[in-house]
């Protein structure tokens, strides 16, 4: 089936070349980082995680795209999702690969990464994150590929793919939970030390993953003869709607606990920094308000059945959902946790140009993989249709 990725239109190849250029730029910057150290990034002693770990955290959420089509299809017999389960799974595969790359580029000593396996440490949540992410990656690539291969050969998929699919459903919950636990178990970080962190991660994942899947479905429909189907897209839109409502609700809960209790250990200072500025520092304020505005726009367009069932309305809603959650989770949550620092001082963070280029490079790797996998999947679907 791989050969299907090797023939394509001019547009396909220009897109691939464009991604390869971004990857090359990112890789060059990474070599620079390898040589100079993380000093070329905007991270500091106080804000010791930045854009890389933010992207990692956000993309674990995007990987939820798979479970949100697989669960309704296999457990609730939602037939319309049958056509697009593989799209969900392949998006999850690309997202997890990006997650792993973001962890890798964030390491100070990447050549020692195998120490995580050579000295396995079960009391470290990072160890478990490695276990659940690699497991989820394997499950999705194996299931997605085998089922697609069977479709290609016009045979029914073997029984074991179904068993693996059932395993992959609770496994998906584990990746968001364990990733949230990276943050939610640290005693000194008030903004992260909240029991609903895992629930927030699940909710925002179930919104951002399917939102991107909807956008990708529109792209697939536009550029190929394969149509994921209006009904499937509408079902996904309903999922995004509920998940986005719950996501925003959860953020609201954090605000209530922080500002009504007025106890500094519930993250009040961080929320002040993020949305109003603290001690005269306010770099993230415009972005956080952009999050708020986009979240409201997304909710209005999603809740209103007229705009949700309208193609362009849904597209805008999905872009708004995706971008707003990217700001909230991929930037505000991670950076905010470090502000103020343990001495109650504010050190601000802004990524540098090479840091942004490395980040774009990793995204480009993910999208290249996604393009190849989708090209194969769509070509098979076109043939069998």
């Amino acid at each position, binding site marked *: 089936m791989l050969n299907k990725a090797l023939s394509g239109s001019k547009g396909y190849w220009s897109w691939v070349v464009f991604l390869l250029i971004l990857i090359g730029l990112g890789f060059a910057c990474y070599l620079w980082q390898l040589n*100079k*150290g*993380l*000093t070329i990034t905007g*991270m*500091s*002693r*106080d804000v*010791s*995680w930045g854009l890389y770990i933010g992207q990692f955290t956000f993309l674990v959420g995007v990987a939820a795209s798979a479970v949100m089509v697989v669960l309704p299809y296999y457990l609730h017999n939602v037939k319309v999702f049958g056509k697009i389960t593989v799209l969900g799974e392949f998006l999850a595969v690309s997202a997890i690969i990006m997650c792993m790359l973001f*962890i890798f580029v*964030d*390491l*100070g*000593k*990447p050549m*020692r*990464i195998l*120490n*995580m396996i*050579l*000295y396995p*440490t079960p*009391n*470290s*949540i*990072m*160890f478990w994150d*490695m276990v659940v992410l690699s497991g989820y990656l394997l499950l999705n690539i194996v299931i997605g590929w085998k089922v697609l291969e069977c479709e290609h050969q016009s045979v029914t998929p073997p029984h074991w793919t179904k068993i693996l699919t059932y395993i992959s459903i609770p496994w998906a919950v584990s990746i968001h939970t364990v990733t949230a636990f*990276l*943050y939610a*178990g*640290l*005693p*000194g*970080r008030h903004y992260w030390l909240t029991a609903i962190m895992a629930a927030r991660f699940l909710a925002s994942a179930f919104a951002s993953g399917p939102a991107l899947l909807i956008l990708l479905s529109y792209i697939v429909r536009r550029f190929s003869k394969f149509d994921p189907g209006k009904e499937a897209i509408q079902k996904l839109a309903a999922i995004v709607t509920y998940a986005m409502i719950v996501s925003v609700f959860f953020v609201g809960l954090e605000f209530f606990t922080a500002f009504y209790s007025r106890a*500094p*250990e519930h993250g009040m200072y961080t929320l002040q920094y993020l949305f109003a500025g603290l001690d005269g520092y306010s770099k993230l304020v415009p972005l956080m308000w952009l999050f708020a505005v986009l979240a409201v726009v997304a909710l209005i367009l999603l809740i209103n059945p007229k705009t949700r069932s309208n193609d362009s309305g849904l597209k805008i809603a999905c872009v708004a959902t995706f971008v707003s959650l990217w700001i909230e989770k991929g930037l505000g949550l991670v950076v905010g*946790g*470090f502000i103020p*620092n*343990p*001495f*109650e*001082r504010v*050190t601000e963070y802004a990524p540098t140009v090479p840091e942004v280029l490395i980040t774009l490079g990793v995204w480009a790797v993910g999208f290249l993989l996604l393009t190849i996998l989708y090209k194969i999947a769509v070509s098979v679907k076109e043939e069998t249709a």
Partner: protein
Amino acid sequence: MEISRRHFLKIGGICVLGLVAQPLVKAFAQSDVSKASRDPKALTGKKWGLVFDATKCKYSEGCRECILSCHRTHNVPAIDDKKEEIKWIWAEPYENAFPGQGHEYIAAEIKEKPFIVLCNHCTDPPCVRVCPTKATFKREDGIVMMDYHRCIGCRFCMAACPYGARSFNFKDPRPFIKEENKEYPTREKGVVEKCNFCVERLDAGLMPACVEACPHKALFFGDLEEPGSDVSKILRSHYTIQRKPELGTRPNVYYIIV
């Protein structure tokens, strides 16, 4: 290639022998003495702790002996950029060292009084809990130590430490070491570091560098589990506080405020 049954059994037997031999040698030939024998002069303790007496410290009058001595001993680079600086021991005003433990009417001289801060060598250290490679670990004598050769530079420990005690080598630290102490290793870029309670000096029978260097006897070091030690006596006879005790980390650095 043909393998006769006899040949197969021979090879199999040797393999089994090989597998059994190593544990057998370990079981019978291992002595009780650990491989690296300890210097008889070495200071030993059950739980090391440090007390800082703010009433004696002359930091506000310009004394920097503890900091200079520590950083010289451990090849801590002098990086001026606040964002990338490396520090094992330094001073913070009361209100920053003990956030939430002051109030708006507190005497100005206490509010701004400098307090020496360093790794607390917590009894229940979050940094050890989160490290994915055991590069940060706790010794039996309570010291939280780092293996710079195992650290992968993920900085999870920095996120976990509620005391800001950890520094990361964003760049190669060696050009920033003014005078290298050949007795102690330097670090590479990409690893985390922090105060080690001078394990290398304790092993040689010496007190930590900061304690030894303090000309005003403001720092005390000793075994908290030993009732006769200096630190135990001070803790029994003075009112002392810890940094952020509410977090349950049980720090082993104590402070005399007034």
